[in-house]
């Protein structure tokens, strides 16, 4: 491990989900920030400058789609890879998220935490 830990921003309204992610990732020496919806997520992205963002789609106030759109409009933040982590798996949603610039589209019930960890490593390295 390098001295600088990888910073991950989790934008997720369900506390139990963000808790699971936070526990796993912190155990693996990542630095974690959690936001409960998109608006707060954008603010936190600007201040914390994370290496990778994990974002849910269905959230109150500012949804994951809106979050992605605004993130990619921001010239300072648009280079941060944003991985969508959701339980919506219709092709139409997936296409929409990828069109908005998501780095990857993962469905929660089909993703192992170890896989997710490897993915984050991969994107942080780029």
């Amino acid at each position, binding site marked *: 491990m390098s001295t600088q830990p990888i910073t991950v921003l989790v934008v997720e309204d369900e506390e*139990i*989900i963000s*808790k*699971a992610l936070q*526990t796993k990732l912190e155990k693996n020496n990542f630095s974690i920030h959690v936001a409960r919806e998109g608006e707060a997520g954008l603010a936190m992205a600007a201040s914390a400058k994370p290496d990778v963002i994990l974002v849910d789609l269905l959230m109150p106030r500012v949804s994951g789609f809106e979050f992605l759109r605004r993130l990619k409009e921001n010239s300072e933040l648009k280079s941060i890879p944003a991985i969508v982590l959701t339980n*919506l*798996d*219709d*092709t*139409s949603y997936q296409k929409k998220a990828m069109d908005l610039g998501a780095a990857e589209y993962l469905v929660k019930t089909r993703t192992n935490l170890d896989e997710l960890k490897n993915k984050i490593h991969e994107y942080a390295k780029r």
Partner: protein
Amino acid sequence: MLGALIYVSLSNTSASLKKEIQLRVNQQGEALSLIFNNSLERLYFDTDSFAQRTAIKNGSQTLSNQPDLATIGNLAEYASLKEALIDEQSARDASFIAIVNTKAQILAASTNAQTGKKLSIRGFVDGVIKSGLPVKSIEVIPSAELAVLSPELLEQAKVTRRTTELQKTGWRDKKAETDGLFMTAVSVIKKDNAVIGAVVSGILMNNDVTLLEDVTQKSGGIATIYLYDARVATTQTYRDRNESAEGTLASEDVVNTVYVSQNNFSGRAFEVNDWYLMSYIPLRDSNNEVVGSIARGIVESEIQKNISGLQWRYIIVGGIALIIVFIVTSIITRQIVNSLKKLAANAYRISRGNLDIDIKAPERDDEIGDLTHSFIIMKDKLLEYYTKLEDLVAKRTQELRQKVKDLERAQHSIEREKNKSESILANVGDGVLALDENLSFIACNEAASELLGYANTEVIGSQLDNIIVLKSLKLIDANKEYSPIMESIKTGQIIVTGTGDYAIINKAKKEIPVTITAAPLIDAHGVIKGGVVVLRDVTKEQEIDKMKSEFVSVASHQLRTPLSASKWFLEMLLDGDAGKLNDEQHEYLDHTYKSNERMIALVNDLLNVSRIESGTIAIEPVSSDMDGMVKSVLFELTPLIKQKNIKTVFKTLPGGTPKIKIDSKLIRQVFQNLLSNAVKYTPEGGTTGVRITKAGKYLQFEIFDSGVGIPKAQQSKVFKKFFRADNVITLQTEGTGLGLYVAKSVVDASGGKIWFTSVEGQGTSFFFTLPLAGSKRREGEKTLI
């Protein structure tokens, strides 16, 4: 003349005898081909399980990460990998086993191979690494690569070509065959879902006559393996000396059929220095090129000798038998004819009605005597019946009079019944209509005329099509012309449609969803004289159904949040993130994790069903490799297949199944559902597999098993939602009862058909078809999970 006749018939027999022997040779050829296939199959499975070993994965990864592959021979990992490879090679009787990296460069091998050098096998290995699926094939390894792999193998493969009588000249201009014909299997090595290399194993066929001698010792004849036209392994020797015919060449006829036209050869062929009856089966490599063949045969002179010896014996025995038969018959005939003449004269008299004649009792003690005796008895009986007949006629006339009286009484009661039925019909809540055989209406109750919007008088006498306009509401309907009412009248069966299948368009052009019950009217002789139709308005039921689907869809999404949280926390516990677990704790958590995964699968299935029922599934056809799809689904099931020691069979079309345009994600799910059922319900040591055939404009897939079968009484419900057969609920198998329903919906929507045959206790075969022309594209927002 007689002799000539026998001779002609005997020479026909000799021709058909030869045909018989050729058939046997062909069967022997097929049998030999099966033996080789079996060895190849075993190599394939062994190679695959070898590639799954953790030690192999780790060792391969370390070696492939080294900057200079030429010098990895000094590393400890290389030494232990090599030792494992040598052990595996001798355990499997293989000629070599090698591990290559993703560029097909050798990392280690059971032989003293040069690390870092390429082992491509004419692109075969690169292809497997690219596709990621395990493959077996017959391949030619070029001499250059053999030299890299092992100088001993290169030496072992070498066969000098020898000029041979009747060979095809100028076809292959070489002095010696230096390439090796191999049975080859390749399996990729995966780590963390990424391909890091592959295991390549091979069995050299050149100069190896063990299998061939096995079969010829058991059932005679010769057996040969060819690399192109050269015999590289054979049991055949020169006629006059005990020297192997290895290196000699196939005759021109054979080369033209097997290598130029690329077909099986069956018939008379010149082999080295004699004529044989032969069967050749081409060997194709993964590019479908014929690179060799295997052959079985019997030398012709042997057959000829046997046949002509038999012929002479037949002629002599047949002639003697004929003469004896002729003498005996003429004696017997003379004795019998006279007595029969007398009998015939009497029979003629009786046929004229003269029953009073007196026939002399027989003086003979043989069959003719018995016949005359029976004849007398018959005459007496005839006389007796004749008298009885007159009494009978009088009695029957009396009975008929009584019957007419009974019929009159019955008619009155029928009229009473008719009035009763009509009043019942008028008060039934469902629409009831009746049709005659010309499809015009003969009855219609109040509820029917209300539903259809036509007055009773408008309906009666009108044609079916003018009154009942049907609209199909099904997800997809292959045949728009299909009408359950017409079908019932045509086939004589009672047809009941489901909720959501059809709507009628009534007089006011309003669409009303209905269920239809159509039954034929059949008269006493079994002839269809029309039909009865019952229409039920199911508007309310449909609304409830839709609400139900929406509820399931919302509920499934909601359920996934806690399910994914449980999944992740369980993963962490199992990984020991919250402290080390003891064995018992680990076991309990593992059960919990598996139950949670099952719940996720169940929720996915429920969601799929609600998507199918709301009709929003997208079909996106892309050109797909069906063989690859079947192999990869089988591969996924390997752990369970191995655990239950089940034999799997995969029969594709000769030369491989052509690619077709289908939605590969959906069709893959069909294979997954059907094959996992097949494996689940097959007992230990059973057989299961896939057979692909062509049926007209369709590809037909058969997924068969030797499992518990489906009870006859339940076979009509198999494709219904939540179906689980009685005899499997007691077995310890998991299942939601939704897999077959999903499979049928997908196949229907892809333009195919699905059906099955099953015998309880013996096994089940599911069949489905897909159009060779491909599925039609369908827009939709959703796909199945």
